[in-house]
């Protein structure tokens, strides 16, 4: 199709033709077009169907406020619905399709909704479809959703890339119109670091859409000169295609930069970057948005905002119609008539609602004062309008101007409250603005060019002074103020005809009146009842109109009626942009143990433990079930020797003259007299007496301890200890630092553990039972001089050691240990086998240290030393915590040993009902014991240590399992501890 609606001038690149499709039909436009301008140039008027009634809709505006022209871009996984044609930068290969119709766009089968409109007024879905209730989810909602809606997502994973970033500046200038450019130029020249952001791909704002002069040259040329100068400044960062969508705390802003959306191929780069901008000051120069007037059938394709009609003509060389009329309540609407008349377009009439005006129409153009448009005709596009004076005029485009509303949105993101300005018929920024924000230009109510530039000039001077710059402000550009008289005229009585307020959500003036009749007095309630302003455009062209009609209906002033709350984002932001690059396996960082590579090469199946990846078990060829691997690892370890990477346990270096006393405070048991070269198990309580964590503390010297924590609590324990050091015991000479990452640590467990280690530890270190008994520790060397630390501690209950080497040797150390263990059939074991062995031994772990249990519950009551003060000591003696029938950690085995126990099951007496009142405790940990040949468990039960041999019922209602279990000692293996001392 030829571009028959192109005018001879404009700000597009006529040297570069661009091919695109709309509803699979091929069209051409030019570089610099938006999809909307290119469609208009090709005579396409009908571009979509309305949300609820499936009314034919056309292009309404020329910016991000567009309510009608929503299209779906791309195909397959790259499908992106609800894109505003007015902001889509035309590029080769662009594919767009219209939305929300069944059948073709022109012959939409769901258009019958419009016939049903008397039954579908505001709030109809709150009142109907109530019975039967079960039909709502299964029938009514799916049908309604199918009949009404916007575009649809692909249902596939978004294949596009997104990124995030951080920017800093002295001054963030939001908007590159006349006010924004004056500000950026002066701040840039003064040496301030400036970010100039604009949502448009062509900078200049309204200066690119008008036939104005600045400093004696065309406005667009002045913009080009200014941008050119700014681009040369290293302290100025110009960001076109960037929407500042939210104002957050302390001068922080969210901004979305579209990096490759305007290109056919993204070349592997992120399509969008979500920026967090830290500004010392911001200047909001976001301009103003034109609003409509409500009159009967004011939604037909061809009825557009007057400023948009002018912009399409001036910026894009596009004439939205060949016979155009203007309907306005202000002077600005007349400029549309003048600009288009100058291009030879037939202006059929200027209709002004005001009783008198000082404006003159272009030569030969009829004007009607104190007149309104009362109705329009044309099924798929406008064909004529009816006036209140009885005239009917044949037109294909009606340019409507109901006045301009300052874009105050970002000023309200910290709960600023806009103030009504009757003189310009607009809300302007009011109340408390976001920290560091100044507003200038039309966004602040200075609606004319000269006033906008002047306000920006003065504001920037003040901002720079507050930032301690000494600017030499340039003289203000020479410009003239245009006529800007306006009036508060909102809607034309439409009788039974519908006068549209919110085009995107199909809200009419009648809907608003009805909501008032039904008792919705607050503007916030009106919004939610009618859905006014709740669509993707957030009511940018409709909110003002809606609340003005509400004010009229309720007999209040607009000021008294107020606005709804403006919240981020200013325009829609893809969820993918918020996620950035944190997707899939890069959703969060992964910590790998030093022997990760060795584990990977030796069949490890990994499990996430916090951010760590740990070997869960090592599958051998032929093993088809995880239990085979785990049983093998447990049996081999208990029979000979096994090796496990335990680096993930937290390690904290505690140094200082008061290190021992400090440990006395944070642990419930005593550490003051622990000898150098010895390790002690430690129990850490919270202030309230509940167990926080457990671990060991090894005394390396008089002033040096190495504390270990559980993997899960490594960070929280370190944080707790720092809190104690800095806030509770600041008088103590103690220094803390984490060494979790510094040392690769391996448990070597089993009867042959010592023999294995003797092959690795250098000969000068005697690790015999006499020289290095149970709970000994010391610095040794391995493999001919590599420094290491050795601890004789056991989690498995076997003769066991933990040996630590600097992490750089970790991978190699695992290999060396396995090599040294070949003679003993050593196995590597993972966290599952580790868990099995600690349950067999009756050692508590995370499941038992669950934040609700006490030392007494764990059978460790005597560890809470009463000879010293420690955190949690006093409150652990609360009456309820030390009662006779408190919980005890005990062991359980099934009566029927062919059955498997389940963690989480609750205990009740065998003859009791499984209800809360009869609950006696719960199973915390279970496993299959390959040594015993049946399932075993640990758990808490009232007075458990006095009930060995008693049978109770373990009830797991969630999984439908109930079985009888016998209470036994928690020490299933080696209850006397002979092995670990061997």
């Amino acid at each position, binding site marked *: 199709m030829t571009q028959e609606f192109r005018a001879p001038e404009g700000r597009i690149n006529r040297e570069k033709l661009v091919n695109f499709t709309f509803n699979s039909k091929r069209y051409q436009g030019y570089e610099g077009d938006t999809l909307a301008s290119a469609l208009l140039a090709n005579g396409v008027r009908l571009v979509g169907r309305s949300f609820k009634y499936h009314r034919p809709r056309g292009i309404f505006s020329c910016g991000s406020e567009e309510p009608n022209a929503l299209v779906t871009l791309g195909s397959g996984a790259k499908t992106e619905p609800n894109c505003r044609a007015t902001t889509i930068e035309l590029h080769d290969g662009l594919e767009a399709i219209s939305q929300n119709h069944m059948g073709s766009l022109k012959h939409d089968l769901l258009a019958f909704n419009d016939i049903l409109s008397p039954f579908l007024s505001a709030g109809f879905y709150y009142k109907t479809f109530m019975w039967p209730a079960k039909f709502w989810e299964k029938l009514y909602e799916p049908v309604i959703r199918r009949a009404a809606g916007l575009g649809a997502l692909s249902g596939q994973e978004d294949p596009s890339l997104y*990124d*995030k*970033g*951080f*920017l*800093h500046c002295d001054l963030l200038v939001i908007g590159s119109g006349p006010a924004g450019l004056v500000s950026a130029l002066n701040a840039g020249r003064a040496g301030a*670091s400036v970010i100039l952001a604009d949502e448009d791909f062509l900078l200049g704002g309204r200066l690119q859409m008008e036939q104005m002069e600045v400093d004696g040259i065309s406005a667009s040329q002045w913009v080009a000169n200014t941008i050119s100068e700014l681009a040369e400044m290293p302290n100025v960062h110009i960001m076109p295609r960037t929407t500042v969508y939210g104002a957050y705390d302390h001068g922080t802003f969210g901004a979305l930069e579209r990096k490759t959306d305007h290109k056919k191929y993204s070349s*592997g*780069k*992120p399509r969008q*970057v979500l920026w967090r901008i*830290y500004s010392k000051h911001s200047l909001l120069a976001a301009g103003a948005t034109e609003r409509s007037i409500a009159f009967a059938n004011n939604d037909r394709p061809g009825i557009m905002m007057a400023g948009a009609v002018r912009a399409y003509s001036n910026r894009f060389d596009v004439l939205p119609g060949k016979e155009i009329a203007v309907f306005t309540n202000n002077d600005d609407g007349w400029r549309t008539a003048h600009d288009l008349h100058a291009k030879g377009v037939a202006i059929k009439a200027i209709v002004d609602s005001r009783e008198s005006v000082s404006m003159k129409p272009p030569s030969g153009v009829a004007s009607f004062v104190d007149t309104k448009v009362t109705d329009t005709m044309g099924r798929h596009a406008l064909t004529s309008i009816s006036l209140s004076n009885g005239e009917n005029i044949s037109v294909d485009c009606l340019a409507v101007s109901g006045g301009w509303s300052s874009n105050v949105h970002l000023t309200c993101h910290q709960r600023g409250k806009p103030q009504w300005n009757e003189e310009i018929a607009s809300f302007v920024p009011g109340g408390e603005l976001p920290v560091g924000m100044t507003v200038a230009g039309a966004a602040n109510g200075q609606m004319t060019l000269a006033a906008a530039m002047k306000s920006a000039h003065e504001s920037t001077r003040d901002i720079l002074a507050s930032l301690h710059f000494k600017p030499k402000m340039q003289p203000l550009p020479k410009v003239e103020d245009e006529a800007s008289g306006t009036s508060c005229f909102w809607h034309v009585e439409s009788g039974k005809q519908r006068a549209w307020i919110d085009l995107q959500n199909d809200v009419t003036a009648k809907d608003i009146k009805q909501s008032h009749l039904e008792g919705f007095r607050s503007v916030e309630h009106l919004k939610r009842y009618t859905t006014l302003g709740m669509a993707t455009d957030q009511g940018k062209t409709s909110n003002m109109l809606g609340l003005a009609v509400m004010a009229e209906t309720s007999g209040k002033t607009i000021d008294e009626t107020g606005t709804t709350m403006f919240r981020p984002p200013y325009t829609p932001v893809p969820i993918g942009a918020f996620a950035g*690059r*944190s997707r899939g396996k*890069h959703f*969060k*960082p*992964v*910590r*790998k*143990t*030093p022997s990760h590579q060795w584990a990977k090469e030796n069949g490890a199946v990994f499990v996430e433990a916090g*951010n*760590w990846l740990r070997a869960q078990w090592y599958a051998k060829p032929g093993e088809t079930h995880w239990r085979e691997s785990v049983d093998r690892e447990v049996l081999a370890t208990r029979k000979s020797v096994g090796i496990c990477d335990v680096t993930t346990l937290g390690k904290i*270096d505690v*140094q*200082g*003259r008061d290190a021992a006393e400090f440990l006395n405070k944070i642990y419930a048991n005593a550490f003051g007299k622990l000898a150098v070269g010895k390790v002690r198990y430690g129990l850490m309580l919270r202030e309230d007496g509940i167990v926080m964590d457990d671990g060991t503390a090894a005394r390396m010297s008089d*002033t040096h301890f190495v504390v270990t924590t559980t993997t899960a609590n490594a960070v929280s324990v370190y944080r707790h200890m720092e809190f104690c050091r800095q806030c509770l015991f600041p*008088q*103590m*000479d103690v*220094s803390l*630092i*984490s*060494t979790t*990452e*510094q*040392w*690769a640590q391996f448990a070597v467990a089993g009867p042959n553990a010592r023999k294995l280690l*003797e*092959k*690795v*530890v*250098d*000969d000068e270190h005697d690790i015999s039972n006499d020289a290095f008994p149970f709970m000994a520790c010391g610095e040794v060397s*391995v*493999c*001919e001089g590599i*420094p290491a630390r050795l601890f004789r501690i056991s989690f498995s209950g076997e003769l066991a050691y933990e040996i630590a080497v*600097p*992490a*750089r*040797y970790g*991978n*190699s*150390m695992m290999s*060396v240990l396995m*090599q*040294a263990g070949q003679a003993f059939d050593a196995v590597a074991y993972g966290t599952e086998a580790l868990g099995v062995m600690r349950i067999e031994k009756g050692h508590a772990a995370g499941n038992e240290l669950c934040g609700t249990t006490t030392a007494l519950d764990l059978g460790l009551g005597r560890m809470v030393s009463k000879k010293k003060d420690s955190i949690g000591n006093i409150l652990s003696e609360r009456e309820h915590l030390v009662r006779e029938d408190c919980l005890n950690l005990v062991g359980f085995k099934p009566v029927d040993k062919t059955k498997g126990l389940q963690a989480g099951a609750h205990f009740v007496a065998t003859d009791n009902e499984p209800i809360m009142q009869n609950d006696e405790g719960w199973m915390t940990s279970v496993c299959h014991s390959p040594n015993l040949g049946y399932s075993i468990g640990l758990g808490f039960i009232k007075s458990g240590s006095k009930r060995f041999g008693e049978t109770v019922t373990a009830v797991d209602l969630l999984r439908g399992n109930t079985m009888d279990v016998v209470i036994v000692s928690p020490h299933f293996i080696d209850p006397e501890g002979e092995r670990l001392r061997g």
Partner: protein
Amino acid sequence: MADISLKLEARSPLNGYSKSFGNLRVEEVTGKALVSIAVPQGGNAKLATAIKKQLGAAWPEIGTTTTSPKGYQLLGIQTDMVLAVFDHRGGLSDDLIRKGLGDKAYCTDQSDAWVMIRVAGEGVYEALERICPLDISERNFAIGQVARTQMEHLGAIIVKEDKNEFLLMSASSSADDFLHAITVSVENIL
């Protein structure tokens, strides 16, 4: 008896990664020792004097670094603690420092706890602004400055070594993800 055929091999967290991306180079810095030096209570002046004498470097203010002709660089990262960076000489690096400073300091070897990655070349600012929340522009972050921050949820230390050169440090266990964060940033701005 120890089996002398058993040998340990050292491997850095990124196995010596080094790669150029246009004008930018990303490389793991290896062979460095890193030791935390903490001040015993009330011993600031004594330790500063001892450090000056033993290491040849002044005690750095927080956010700054100092260097010495002996090859030590001290990073002022927090109250009452600095990190000393120097060429690794085998064994436990804290022993080397401790011998010189005695009981005037509490030293802990951190050489294996951190991965060090140098990012250098034109475009380094654009690359790092994708992950570094701090203002590291030339006007705000001078050569020799150091800061603690986080990048892609990972704790990090950043040192400006030269005009277009930064040293980044993060936990060695998540070195792969830290490197990924950096290289993705570099690739995204090329």
